[in-house]
């Protein structure tokens, strides 16, 4: 079921943890909340769950306003960061819990509960482990049991708080593609919190980037990568290389500033600039988006070192005065550049932002 957040704010003491967030998640969508630690993503998830009752704003799930509805009546499946399985119960008892605690009138018969439990355990592929205790399971198995338990009460909204955090990388990859398929198969609406952008990019339909409690941008993974609304978003989603530059009256970039001043370079078309008019700009690129063209021109950048990086060659490229260097990745299929040779920079793929912070030039 869809979720509609309107002007949600939440204070922790006097510090705002979530500032005025409005966000709509449509039915069947898989949304990822990402951001650095302390950005408020877990708080936002807990507000949706009802576990953080002190918030202002309005919250609807489906057509129902749940702003003042307590957590236990929201019918939301929640998968906790460390799974929070009940240690004194077997796997089957854990999964059955949500059905067993229902008031008598809505409680399914014993046999029906047992059938539902084994169906769920088959669904998450841990059927043979029904009689084990949580301490006897591996991380991946606990993760699956936690998911089965959350799904037992047939929630239409599934919330996941860093669900892959405690898993080793191989299991992680496997379980997230599996989770994505499960989401589609069951027609769920899911919201996932993660600090790992690659996880979000792989699994989610849309990604909401949070910073200091505010929503920075919500968009599809492609749009976030191609048209980040701020330098922060671009930097958060992956490694970046930055250059300061100046723009002319028509908004076109004229030259690089600082140590790269005078280096021959190609710039993006004015259309991608944040606004017309002259002023300071910041160009931000992924390390593999920078083109290097050998040249003997005056003030050219110098290649000072290289190494292998998977399918790329990694070049250290130094500013003409030697004070500043960036790392550039170039497909190893291209002819290698000579060591200590001069080169021009092709920055046509850069995202252009206005007025960067003074120290935002870093790689």
């Amino acid at each position, binding site marked *: 079921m869809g979720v509609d957040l309107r002007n949600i704010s939440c204070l922790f003491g006097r510090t705002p943890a979530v500032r005025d967030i409005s966000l709509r998640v449509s039915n069947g969508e898989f949304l990822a909340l990402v951001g650095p630690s302390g950005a408020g993503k877990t708080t936002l998830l807990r507000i949706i769950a009802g*576990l953080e009752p002190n918030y202002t704003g309005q919250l609807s799930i489906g057509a129902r306003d749940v702003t003042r509805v307590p957590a*236990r009546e929201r019918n939301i499946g929640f998968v906790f960061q460390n799974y929070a399985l009940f240690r004194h119960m077997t796997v089957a008892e854990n999964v059955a819990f949500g059905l067993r*605690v229902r008031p008598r009138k809505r409680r399914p018969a014993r046999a029906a509960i047992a059938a539902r439990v084994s169906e769920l355990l088959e669904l998450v592929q841990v059927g043979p482990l029904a009689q084990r205790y949580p301490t006897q399971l591996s991380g991946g198995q606990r993760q699956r049991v936690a998911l089965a338990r959350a799904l037992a009460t047939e929630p239409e909204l599934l919330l996941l708080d860093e669900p892959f955090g405690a898993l080793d990388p191989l299991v992680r990859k496997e379980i997230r593609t599996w989770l994505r398929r499960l989401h589609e198969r069951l027609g769920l609406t899911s919201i996932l919190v993660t600090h790992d952008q690659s996880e979000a990019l792989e699994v989610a339909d849309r990604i909401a980037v949070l910073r200091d409690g505010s929503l920075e941008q919500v968009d599809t993974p492609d749009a976030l990568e191609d048209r980040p609304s701020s330098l922060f978003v671009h930097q958060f989603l992956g490694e970046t290389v930055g250059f300061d530059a100046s723009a002319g009256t028509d908004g076109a970039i004229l030259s690089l500033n600082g140590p790269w001043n005078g280096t021959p370079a190609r710039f993006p078309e004015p259309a991608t600039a944040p606004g017309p008019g002259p002023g300071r700009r910041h160009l931000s690129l992924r390390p593999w988006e920078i083109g290097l063209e050998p040249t003997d021109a005056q003030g050219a950048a110098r290649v000072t070192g290289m190494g292998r990086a998977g399918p790329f060659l990694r070049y250290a490229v130094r500013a003409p005065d030697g004070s500043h260097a960036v790392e550039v990745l170039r497909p190893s299929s291209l002819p290698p550049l000579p060591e200590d040779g001069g080169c021009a920079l092709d920055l046509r793929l850069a995202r252009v932002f206005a007025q960067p912070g003074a120290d935002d030039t870093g790689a």
Partner: protein
Amino acid sequence: MSVSPPLRRSPMALGLTLLAWLAAVLFLLLPLASLGTEALRKGLGGVLRALADDDALAAIRLSALVVAVCVPVNTVCGLFAAYALTKYDFPFRGLLLVLIELPLSVSPVVAGLVWVLLFGAHGWFGPWLAAHNIAVVFALPGILLATLFVTFPFVARTVMPVMESQGRAPEEAATMLGAGFGSVFLRVTLPEIRWALLSGVLLCAARALGEFGAVSVVSGHIPGQTETVPLHIETLYNGYDTVGAFSLAAVLALCSGAMVASRTLMDWLRGRRSVAR
């Protein structure tokens, strides 16, 4: 389950072990043995006669009553105090933590004295109580209050670390699954802490049974009426009735020993079970 490396045997370890055993024999076993031999100096008949004495029986009954009242009350109170302190955050939480530990650090004599100051004949509420013909000090209520005060921390203190280590996650998980407060407490919180709770209850019982100082101040030492077992032992000893004193002392020591033993047995059983899992 984490696997710790096997314990090593070395001359150093052997020496330390011997030292520990020596201390145990010298300071624990030897006094206990003397307790037994002193009690049995006039044969088993002497012990039985000492225990069948009216005042001794009254003291045993009173001690049993004190345990029967204080242990359940402090179990419930301690449980809720621990729950509130570990699962919720509220103003002056730190202060409440200190207050709970206060009885452990305050001398039992002081713990008894405060009740006399409050409810004694010249205490704050003394005149009012006297006017309404209610006896607190030098009567059963005083003894119960003093023992409750002294034994309050045990359940809370043993249960809190376990609750703390689990955080609020199990409760929150149960809430998200639709369980109300009662269900969460009975089906999730309580089972997860049951071993620590049992251990705390036994500790509390052992202390309630053995408490001397605080009770001594408020009881008034009326033989057959306000003397618990430890107080009666002192009275007998001061009256040069060594056989009587040591017989009762031996009974007390046996009770405490049984409680400690059952706690150890419980831990051992639990350890075996979790390995078997």
